[in-house]
């Protein structure tokens, strides 16, 4: 399911127009993105949490040329699945 399909489903289930559902879904993910940009942790109960991890720089190699390149420090987002969702996802395969 992609974002457009999610918007359709939200619109159907909550009786808001597609246009409003789009604003809501976009604002939700945009808000989460901005929060991560600020380095904040996001916790959605029943779903999971997002956090930003910092990675130090290191010297790597360009696999094509063998040239040594400096890989700068970077930040990466991480998602930790909540217990409830983790169990939900795992129950179906067994049925």
């Amino acid at each position, binding site marked *: 399911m992609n974002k457009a399909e*999610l918007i359709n489903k939200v619109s159907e289930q909550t009786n808001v127009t597609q246009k409003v559902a789009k604003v*809501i879904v976009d604002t939700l993910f945009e808000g989460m*993105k901005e929060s991560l940009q600020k380095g904040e942790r996001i916790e*959605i*109960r029943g779903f999971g949490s997002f956090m930003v991890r910092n990675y130090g720089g290191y010297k790597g190699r360009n696999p094509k040329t063998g040239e040594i390149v400096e890989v700068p*420090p970077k930040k*990466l987002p991480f*998602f930790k699945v909540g217990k409830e969702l983790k169990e939900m996802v795992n129950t179906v395969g067994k049925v």
Partner: protein
Amino acid sequence: MTKVDIVEAIYEKVGFSKKEVAKIVESIFDIIKEHLQHHDKIKISGFGNFVIRNKRARRGRNPQTGDDIEITPRRILTFKPSQVLKASLNQKEVKSDTPVE
């Protein structure tokens, strides 16, 4: 950030009460969860993909006792952040010639 902050941000954009917005936000996560449980991945462009992966049974060890145990097959959920999200976290550091992995 929690659901409360998400509700606040949406409340400022639409003409609903916070209670109504909270209900809608709850449904969004419920729809995502239900889809992940019964179907497959969720792709949110500009944010990332929530992907279900099937793991086969494998041998493992209880790290506390050292006992050999079988880890049962399972379905797990992983999040693969989009390039856009990764780049946005590194805006200041990113140089145009730096490949973003």
